[in-house]
Every structure is written in structure tokens, then in C-alpha cells.
């Protein structure tokens, strides 16, 4: 089984999926990410799926699960780079990924995380 590498950039963890995900790799990534969020105290997670050609219900559920786990560990998740054909297919499959934040690309994903962090700090000051 191939493992998906997790990179750390400041207080953001970046996961760029470059392999054909088999189910075991998906489960391993969820666990690795949870460990890494706690170990690094990261505030945000970006999952870059620019290279991902299909998202089925198992992979789609991973995004939602990672978003829930990160939130519980005080980090926000953004999925970036979804291909149009993947988005169309996911909706028809019946997965709307309601609880998952998305951005068009990595740059916008980072901006969104910074914005969310800023909003949280402002709310805490009030």
C-alpha cells in the first residue's frame, strides 16, 4: 500500500494526492493526518486533489471524515483543486459534501484558512 505524504508549511498541513487511492491508503491517511495535527498543532489542513481523476463514495467520505476529525482537533480543512468532471460526477453520485470547505486552488485554499483563522482571533477578542 502506498502512503500519501503530509507536508507542513507554517501552521498548515498540506496533503497533495498524487497516487491512485486504494481504500487502505485512504484509511491510513485519515489516521496519519489526525496524528500530525496533534503533533504539530496545525490550525489548517489543505487536501489538494488537482491530480485526482475520480472520487467515489469511499474517497468522498474521507474528505468529510477528515474535516470532522480536524475540527475536533481545532483545525479547519479545505479541499482544493477539484476537477470539474469530478464535481459533476460527485453530485450525480449523491455526495454533496455539505460539511466540507472547498477552494478552487492551493492559493485560494491558503487564503481561506488565513481568513478563517483571522475571524476566529477577532471573535475571541470581542
Amino acid at each position: 500500500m502506498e502512503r500519501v505524504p503530509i507536508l507542513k508549511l507554517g501552521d498548515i498541513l498540506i496533503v497533495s494526492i498524487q497516487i491512485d487511492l486504494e481504500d487502505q491508503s485512504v484509511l491510513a491517511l485519515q489516521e496519519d493526518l489526525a496524528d500530525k495535527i496533534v503533533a504539530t498543532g496545525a490550525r489548517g489542513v489543505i487536501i489538494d486533489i488537482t491530480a485526482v481523476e475520480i472520487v467515489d463514495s469511499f474517497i468522498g467520505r474521507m474528505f468529510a471524515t477528515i474535516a470532522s476529525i480536524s475540527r475536533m482537533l481545532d483545525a479547519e480543512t479545505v479541499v482544493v483543486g477539484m476537477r470539474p468532471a469530478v464535481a459533476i460526477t460527485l453530485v450525480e453520485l449523491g455526495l454533496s459534501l455539505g460539511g466540507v470547505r472547498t477552494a478552487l486552488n492551493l492559493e485560494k485554499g491558503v487564503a481561506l484558512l488565513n481568513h478563517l483563522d483571522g475571524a476566529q482571533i477577532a471573535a475571541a477578542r470581542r
Partner: protein
Amino acid sequence: MTSPGEQLLPINSNGDVVLVRQQVRAVAIQAGLSLVDQTKVVTAASELARNALVYAGGGQVKIEVVRNGVRSGLRLTFSDDGPGIPDIEQALTDGWTTGGGLGLGLSGSRRLVDEFDLQSAPGEGTLVTVTKWSR
């Protein structure tokens, strides 16, 4: 029996599910499907291959290019000798799962293809045939 235009792939591991996706993609391109239609049929194949693996302990898929007049298409036949499905109507309902999944594999796959046929009975295994036509 397989004729020159067909191939038979085993589904006995998670790695096999990935190989099925890759091979279905290759044949979908050969059949002239658009990028969106390729993505839909590969996604359906991924769901159906996983079902054969998880619920039946394995199975196989036949991949073939089919023709209907000027249109070409891709037909996938998934078969397994697993426990079968007691209530097909229920299994095809969005959200129905006995395996802790999302229950979208069968119902979602049916939406993603042009033709969908599911035959199954307890103790008789499961046969799912799907076809996607080029536009």
C-alpha cells in the same frame, strides 16, 4: 468466453479495484466517451468493484466496447459468487447500507450510467451490468 474486444479482470484485492478503474478509463477513452462520461463510468466501476470485494469476498468484471448503430459505448459486467442481495429494491435505495458505508454505491452508479441491470438472489451471487454510451 471472451472475444478480442473484451477483457476479464479479477477483483480480489484493493489493488485490483485500482486496476479496474485504470482499465475502465483506458477502454472508455477507446470507446470515445467524453471526459465527464469517462469519469462517471470509472466512478461507477469503482463502486461496483468495491462491492464485489467487500460483500462477496471477490469477483470479476468483464470490460467490453459495444456498438449500437453509429454510437459506441462501454459495457461492464460485474459478477460474484457471494451471498447475493435479498431485497434489491432496498439495496438500490440512497443511503441503504449493511456495511457501514454511505449506501450510494448501487443507487449512485445507476444514476451515473445509461443502462443498469442488477440480478441477485440469496445464495446465487450478484450480477451487475452497466453501459455508458458515447454522445
